[in-house]
C-alpha cells in the first residue's frame, strides 16, 4: 500500500528508524493517509466502536482478574468483594458486564450492515470470514465469562450449553468431559473457563488485526457498493474518519453509561445473584440475550430426522446457522453489492432482520405452545434466506441502475 504514502522522515533519527522498522511510515499510511470512500454513513462507524468495546473489555477484565478468585467456594463472594470493597470496583465490574452486552449490540449492527451493503462480496470475502470467526470467538468468550460470577444462571447455563457437545456421535461424551474437566460443571470447569476467558480476547485482537489488514487491501466498501475509481471519491482516514468515528464512539457511550450507572443489572438475570447450586434448578434457564437467536435454532429441532435424533439435529442446525455466514459470499452471487439498488433483496433482507429479532425473543420464551411453532418458522426462514432467497435473487432480480462513481452519487444527492 506504499503508493498512498506521503511520509518523508523529518530528521535523521526518523530516517534511521524508517530504514530499520518503518512503524511510523506504517501508521501514517494506515491510520492517517488511508484513502477512504467519502460517502460512508454512520453504520460504518461500528467497526471503530467495536475496537473500543474490545479495548474496554480487555482493560476492565485485566483489572477484575486482579481481584477475582476462580474457585467454586469463593468466586461468587469475590465478585461481590469487587463491587463492595475494591476502589472503583463497582464501576469497573458494571462496565465489564454491561460492556459484554454493548459489544454484541455493536457486533450485530456491524454484521447487519455488512449483510445489507454486500460487504461480504468479492474482493472482501476474507474480511467477512475473519469477521464471522471473530463473532464466534466473541460468543465463546462471553459465554465463558458469564460462568465466572458462579451464580445460578452461570452454572445452569454452562450445564445446558456444554450438553451440546454430548450430542456429537461416538466421541461427544468424551469431548464434553474434556471441556468440563469432569462429569459435570464444577471447579475444574470454572478454572479452565477463567483461563480461556483471559486468553481468547487476545486471540480475538489478533484476528481483528488480520480483519483490518484484509480490509486495507481492497479498501472499504461503501453505501452504493461501487468501487473507488479516482482519488476524489475518497478522503484521508485522518482527520475525516477519525473524527467521525470518535464522535460515534462518544454517542455510543451514552446508552452504555446509562446502563452502567442506572441499570447495571437489567441486562442480567436476578438468579445470578444466587450462588451456584447443583441441587436447585432455576425455573427457567435462559442464556444471555446475545446467544438467544442461536439458542432458539438449537431448540427448534425437537423432532428426529431418520437416524439423527432431535438433540444432534439441534446442534447441527445451530452449527449450520454459523456455517451459512461463512459460505455467504458464495451464496449471494449478485454482482450488485448495495441493497439500495436491489429492489427485491431489500424486502427479504428486512424480513431477515425482523426474523432475527424474533429468534432472539423466542429464545427467552418457554419452549411450549405457539412459541415452538414460531421458533420452527423463524428457523426455517433463517436458512431459506441463505440457501434459497439469496441464490435465486442473484439470478432473477433486475437491479436498479448504479451510479458510475461515488462522486457522481454524492453530487446527485447534494443537488436532489
Amino acid at each position: 500500500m506504499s503508493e498512498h504514502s506521503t511520509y518523508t522522515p523529518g530528521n535523521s533519527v526518523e530516517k534511521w528508524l524508517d530504514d530499520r522498522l518503518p512503524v511510523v511510515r506504517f501508521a501514517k499510511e494506515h491510520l492517517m493517509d488511508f484513502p477512504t470512500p467519502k460517502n460512508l454513513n454512520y453504520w460504518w462507524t461500528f467497526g471503530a466502536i467495536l475496537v473500543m468495546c474490545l479495548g474496554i473489555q480487555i482493560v476492565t477484565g485485566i483489572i477484575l482478574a486482579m481481584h477475582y478468585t476462580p474457585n467454586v467456594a469463593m468466586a461468587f463472594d469475590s465478585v461481590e468483594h469487587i463491587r463492595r470493597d475494591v476502589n472503583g470496583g463497582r464501576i469497573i465490574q458494571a462496565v465489564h458486564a454491561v460492556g459484554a452486552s454493548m459489544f454484541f449490540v455493536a457486533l450485530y449492527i456491524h454484521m447487519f450492515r455488512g449483510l445489507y451493503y454486500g460487504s461480504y462480496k468479492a474482493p472482501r470475502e476474507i474480511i467477512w470470514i475473519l469477521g464471522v470467526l471473530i463473532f464466534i470467538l466473541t460468543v465463546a468468550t462471553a459465554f465463558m465469562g458469564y460462568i465466572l460470577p458462579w451464580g445460578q444462571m452461570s452454572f445452569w447455563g454452562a450445564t445446558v450449553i456444554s450438553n451440546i457437545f454430548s450430542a456429537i456421535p461416538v466421541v461427544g461424551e468424551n469431548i464434553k468431559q474434556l471441556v468440563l474437566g469432569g462429569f459435570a460443571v464444577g471447579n475444574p470447569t470454572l478454572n479452565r473457563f477463567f483461563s480461556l476467558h483471559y486468553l481468547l480476547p487476545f486471540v480475538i485482537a489478533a484476528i481483528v488485526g488480520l480483519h483490518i489488514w484484509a480490509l486495507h487491501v481492497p479498501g472499504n466498501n461503501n453505501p452504493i457498493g461501487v468501487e473507488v475509481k479516482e482519488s476524489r471519491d475518497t478522503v484521508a482516514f485522518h482527520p475525516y474518519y477519525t473524527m467521525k468515528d470518535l464522535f460515534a464512539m462518544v454517542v455510543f457511550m451514552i446508552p452504555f453509561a446509562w446502563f452502567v450507572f442506572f441499570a447495571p443489572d437489567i441486562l442480567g438475570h436476578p438468579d445470578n445473584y444466587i450462588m451456584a447450586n447443583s441441587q436447585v434448578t432455576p425455573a427457567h434457564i435462559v442464556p444471555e440475550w446475545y446467544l438467544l437467536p442461536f439458542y432458539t435454532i438449537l431448540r427448534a429441532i425437537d423432532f428426529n430426522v431418520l437416524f439423527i435424533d432431535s438433540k444432534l439435529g439441534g446442534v447441527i442446525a445451530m452449527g449450520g446457522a454459523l456455517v451459512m455466514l461463512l459460505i455467504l459470499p458464495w451464496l449471494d452471487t449478485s454482482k450488485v453489492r448495495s441493497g439500495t439498488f436491489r429492489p427485491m433483496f431489500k424486502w427479504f433482507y428486512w424480513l431477515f432482520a425482523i426474523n432475527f429479532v424474533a429468534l432472539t425473543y423466542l429464545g427467552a420464551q418457554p419452549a411450549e405452545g405457539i412459541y415452538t411453532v414460531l421458533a420452527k418458522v423463524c428457523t426455517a426462514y433463517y436458512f431459506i434466506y441463505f440457501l434459497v432467497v439469496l441464490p435465486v435473487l442473484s439470478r432473477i432480480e433486475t437491479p436498479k441502475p448504479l451510479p458510475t462513481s461515488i462522486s457522481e452519487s454524492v453530487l446527485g444527492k447534494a443537488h436532489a
Partner: protein
Amino acid sequence: MIGAIDMFKTKFIIAAVAAMVGLTSVSAQAAEAGAPIERQNWSFAGIFGTYDENQLQRGFQVFREVCASCHGASLIAFRNLSEPGGPGFSEEQVKALAAEYEVEDPTAEGGRRPGIPADRWPSPFANDQEARDANGGSLPPDFSVLAKARGVTDPFPTWVFNYFTGYQEGGADYIHALLNGYHDEVPETAPEGFELAEGKYYNDYFPGHAIGMAPPLSDGLVTYEPGEDGVTVPETVEQYSTDVAAFMMWMAEPHLVSRKQTGFVVLLFLVLFAGLMYATKRKLWAGIEH
C-alpha cells in the same frame, strides 16, 4: 442540510441500539403463578434516587430484631452501617453495636471475642444443616444480595419501558409483596386442588405458594423510637415490610447513591462532549461533498 441528515441518522442508530437492547429482555422469575406485584414508591428509584436514612435505620431495626434470628448477611460488615450512603449510624454507635455481639475468632482466648466494626455480621446458624434443622427443613436465604436475586416479571410491553426508566426495584417490590402476601388459610384464589403441606404457609407471591417461613411480621411487633421532632411512624406490617425491603436493597447495593450521582455527571459530560464532537466533525466535513 447534510448535517441535519447526519443527525437524523445518528438518532436512528441510537434508536436502533435501544430497540435492540429493549426487544431482547430475558427477565423471568420469582412470581411465576402469583398475583401481580404492586410497585412501591421507593426513595432510591430513578436517576436521582437516594436512600432515606431514617427508613434504613428502621429497616435495620426490623432486620436485627426479627429477620436476623434466622437469616444471615454474611457480606455485610458492621462498619458498612456507618459508611456514606447507608443508614448513617455514627462510628461510635457501630462500635457499641458490634461489641454487643460475640464473634468467632480462633486466635482469641476461648475462640470467641466481642465484635469490632471490621467484623462481618454474625450468622445465626453455624452451617446450612443447622439452619434447616431449626426451620423445618427450609433454608433461610442469606440477605446480603437477596434484594437483587429476586425480581418481578413484567408482561409485554411494560418490560420494554423498564430499560428506559431504569427500573431496578423489582427485588424490593417482591420482598414487600411477599411480606404482605400471607393468608391464615388457603384462599379461594389458590390454584385448583392446592394442598398446603404441613409446616408450610400460604403466600400469594411465593413461587408455588407454599413457603416455609411463618409470617414474620405482625402489627406492633417492633417499637419505633419517635424522631427528634416527635414524628412517629405507624407500627404496621405494611410499614415494617417497606422499611426492611429498603434496608435489604441497601445491603445488596450499598453504593447505589454514589453510583447514581456519578452516573448523572458522566451522562451530562457525555452529552455535552458528544455535542462538541459533532460540531467539530461538522466543521471538518463542511467542505466535502459526501
